[in-house]
């Protein structure tokens, strides 16, 4: 029976050559269970890609940085990203799983992927030697995008992120997840997660929020998840809850709402209050 080949290159060049015949191995938390179906793994641990540093207004984080290292650099990264890392995996796995590996394996239920999208993060890959948005990288997975090896991530240090999630228990993988990012220049990012291949940005919701149309943003979020049904939740549920969570984050972010929207909100809250009163 064919044996798995294991390589631990010392340089990026060596790694890139070896990657012709195998797949990159970071923490191994998702790859190891599939080891019998692989020909060769290229262990990246000696490539020294775990640095966290500030480059001007950007944070740059090596793809080999573990989720736990990100948490421990909490003075350095956004609290929402720390929270996302905790929610992504428990301690033991966070000591193993890298940021790069997490993005390669991420599904829509990954809080870290949602956080990176909301942060407007970019990822640098080889051999193409180029930066791509994480968003574009996630949707290009599976195709030959030239990103054989992820080296580092970067995002603006001034971007803040808020999270809202719904799951069966506090630490269960989220069924619906919304991340709202605000860049230093005020630009907003609305990200939905909780199902599918990866979290998604909702440009219509971002535009609506920018113009103070919170109801419009909620509608756009609902629209974006209008067909997001799977074994874990119906599309109907996800669409409504996505809208609710967008409203909540907009309120937390103190996004000023246009007048007509405010009236609509008040009407809605009143109706909800009555329903509860009867209960």
């Amino acid at each position, binding site marked *: 029976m064919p044996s798995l080949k294991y390589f631990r290159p010392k340089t990026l060049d060596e790694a890139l050559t070896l990657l012709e015949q195998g797949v990159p191995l970071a923490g191994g938390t998702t790859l190891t269970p599939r080891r019998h179906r692989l020909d060769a793994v290229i262990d990246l641990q000696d490539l020294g890609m775990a640095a966290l540093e500030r480059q001007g207004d950007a944070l740059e984080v090596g793809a080999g940085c573990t989720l736990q290292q990100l948490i421990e650099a909490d003075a350095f990264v956004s609290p929402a990203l720390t929270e996302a890392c905790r929610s992504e995996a428990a301690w*033991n796995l966070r000591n*193993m799983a890298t940021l790069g590996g997490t993005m390669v394996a991420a599904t829509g239920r990954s809080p870290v992927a949602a956080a990176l999208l909301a942060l407007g993060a970019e990822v640098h890959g080889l051999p193409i030697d180029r930066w791509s948005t994480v968003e574009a990288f996630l949707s290009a997975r599976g195709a030959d995008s030239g990103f054989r090896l992820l080296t580092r991530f970067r995002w603006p240090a001034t971007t803040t992120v808020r999270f809202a999630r719904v799951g069966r228990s506090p630490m269960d993988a989220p069924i619906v997840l919304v991340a709202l990012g605000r860049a230093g220049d005020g630009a907003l990012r609305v990200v939905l997660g909780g199902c599918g291949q990866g979290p998604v940005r909702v440009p219509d919701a971002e535009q609506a929020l920018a113009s103070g149309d919170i109801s419009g943003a909620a509608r756009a979020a609902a629209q974006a998840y209008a067909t997001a049904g799977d074994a874990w939740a119906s599309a109907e*549920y996800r669409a409504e809850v996505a809208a609710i969570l967008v409203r909540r984050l907009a309120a937390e972010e103190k996004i000023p709402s246009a007048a007509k929207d405010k009236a609509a909100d008040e009407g809605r809250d009143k109706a909800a209050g009555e329903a509860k009163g009867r209960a």
Partner: protein
Amino acid sequence: MRLRLTLNGKRVVVVVPSETTLLEALRDHLGMFGVKHGCETGECGACAVLLDGEPVNTCVMLAAQADGKSITTIESIGQHPELGWRRTEGLDPLQQAFVETGAIQCGYCTPAMILAARALLAENPSPSEADVRQALSGVLCRCTGYLKPVQAILRAAAVLRGETVQSIGAAFFPPSDLMPPAETPSEGDLAGGGTEVLTRAGILPLIQVTSPPRTWTSVGRPEPKVDAVKLVQGKPAFAADIEMRGMLVAKVLHSPVAHARIRKIDAAKARALPGVAAVLTWKDIPRVVYSTAGQSDPIPGPLDTFSLDEKVRFVGDRVAFVAAESEAVAEQALGLIQVDYEPLPAILDPAEAMKEGAPRLHDEPEYVNFGDSDPARNLAAHIHIDIGDVDRGMAEADQVIEGDYAVPKVQQASIEPHVVVTYWDEDNRLVIRTSTQVPFHVRRQLAPVLGLPPKRIRVIKPRIGGGFGGKQEVMVEDVAAHLTIATGRPVRYETTRAEEFFFARSRHPMRLRMRTGVKRDGTITANEMTVLSDTGAYGCHGLTVTGNTGHKAMALYVGDGPYRKSPNIRFHADIVYTNTPPSGAFRGYGVPQGFWAVERHMERVARTLGMDPLEFRLKNTLRAGELHPFSTAWSEGREPRPETIHTCGLEECIAQGSAAIGWSDKYGNASWHRVRGKPHLRRGIGVATVMQGTAIPYLDMGGASIKMNDDGSFNLMVGATDLGTGSDTVLAQQAAEVLGVPLDDIIVYSSDTDFTPFDKGAYASSTTYISGTAVVLAARKVAERIRWRAARMLSKDEAAKVTPDDVRLADRQAWAPDGRSVTLAEVALNALHHEDQEQIMGVASFVSPSSPPPFAAQFAEVTVDTETGAVTVDRLVMAVDSGVIVNPLTASGQIEGGMTQALGYAVCEEMVYDEAGRAREQNFTDYHIFRSDEMPELQTIFVETVEPSHPFGVKAVAEIPMDGVAPAVGNAVLDACGADVMEIPITPERLWRALRRSRQSSVIGHQ
């Protein structure tokens, strides 16, 4: 490949194939058995080690990745303090704290917890509770509910900081002393849960003692578990922790289809693969029909199973067995077995099973009926019980209230999977070393299947890494045994976590319909439950599990006034076959299913009548001195005989539990229900009252054997099967009490069919009571011989003669009334060597004519998001009457762990199958069990009664915590937001739909 590691401070070189995981390298190549296998995908953390000081999960890491690194396993931490003439530094303070606080139950995840804690304390000597819960977040525990491990780590941290910690003493309080209401979270707090939970509970539970002051020295004390020291060191104590020359690895080929006949099966290619020792298909082994349900003879259920059959009945059913030199080769061989399936129509919905023209699962001529089973109608069992006159009771009611409820299939999810090692010994007797709750049933039930008489089988039960009913099944032993018979070699079969989900047993899913007749004053006049229970592809425990659904859950409410004397209760159940994995035994055994329906329904009845839910319950529930209403109607498929309830602490449980949770301040208090600044959140509080049983009357028997050694110590041998619960400890405490020795002097061994007396096994909440009584009876026989001999020794040189009846055993001595004494060691030497030599020993057994029910009140506090339907359980309180508590540490551990499993049942655990019958849940990501960092606050209160049918007054504790959490949570959700969720788990979407329904119906109501 060749790897260099620093393992526990020593440099080692190991040569392994490059696809070897670090877990395999450590266990199979380096003998580090303290590293445990719990899953293959990294979620459970049982396989954790410290890699360069940080905890990592070795099952999801190649050994090659660790090349050049430093690994710490539990084997390097602490030692027994006295190893002969060599003194050691003893256990590590962390290990010591785990032992003292009762943080160890099965002990399977203990090494991983200790390592994680060590890494935490190395970085942070003064962790908060939240820090500790974070540190444990990577280690799933199914036994403890995490409370005691958290307390252990905080205690160890204090010790390591040089602080003085209090000794763990008893925490009894007198009956009049009601607890003050607990502090409520400060206004505006987002109610607890998660890492922020602040544990108010002490290490010991509160125990309200109702009996007179006691003079016991061992019973009632929080003794450390007798197996704790080995477990905390990660000693090779479990079934898989054994190396044997030439041992083969077994794998099972599972059916990919839900229902099919095997047209053709060809194993030639698999057999030809180098490294394959045997491949067995249905053609290769005898066709013997049996039941896998581990129960007493005769099995109260149909015989409908074969080791291998030419028909498969669920996705995951067995098709072939392989034994090979390595796991990788065995896996590869599975892929080379060619099977031609003739697909048959499948039944996935139990409601379809009995319809005209439904496909038939069991058409084999060997099928043996039990009771009303009827395979032609896919009916595995049928129960109809009429007590009193239900129709008349309904007619006499002012109102009849109906409701439909549903419960899902859920998994026991013990962290140690099923595992067995079989081999021929030097006498050609087949040894089965297995992780089982029922060693004696394994021997009896497998003998015909293997073509061996029981006397040529020896079953050894080592330490068990949790079972919860999942191992009350003879499910893996035959696989390894057939392969050992075929090859002559030792064989190990250990299921994967995925196999645990798609192949092992689970809780019966049920649909339950309730009809309750009530008078306006709240008197129940009649109560009826109709159940459709899904046993899956095989009958297993179908009859007895579902029977208990009625027998326990429908027994609690007898009604009031004249109805109390002559209750009207009907229970009707159809237990049907479907093409899904078989259901089986799971802690609670049908009763949690029943109480979801009964306790949700009683809440709705109380609210419909506008009555206080506590008052309504107490008005109608069973009381001491009354007949168990089902005792004359049904007894696990055997002859029923009347049983009177002698003790019932339910009223006091309600008083204590409601005081602890602050019921009177919260229930009906609108401002408490609101959360400031969060208009979408509502708090709710709920209760459920429950009862269970203690063993099966006139059937369950346990034996015990005690022999005295030269030094006055005793070997206690029991067939009772400690699967992590602490039963060895509480049995030893009862022996120590009778014999007047410290627990240290009792050496317990369980269980081995060659050396220990029969015991039916660990199920039906029976061990402390049944096996405990057997131990007391055996100890009394030993004590009698000691007193006789001591009296003779004490009478020798003195004028004052001592009679045996005057001799009292205490402090390792036999005392004369005048204060003289001889030590038990002197008595032992006298007996074994000096005078009229004899082996002082006692053997006894016990079978009970009754099954005294424990009672409990379970409370839940929740926060509901009324917009998304998300439920956060903030607090669980259980006040329970389990009779006298033999060991407050192990007993409260049972309650805390049980509440935690039940919490999963309430909000997140379920097993779902797609349209082809494939399991959605196959790992701990999809099947979520609660982690340490998301737990609600847990609190246990014992309200003692003294059960007269046991020498120390005990009743059961093990299963009852499973019963009331889900309905208490469901009732708290109703209290919070007015929405009735009729089906568990209460997922966000289920509640969201219920909220929409309740809003719509209330809008309609207003029109």
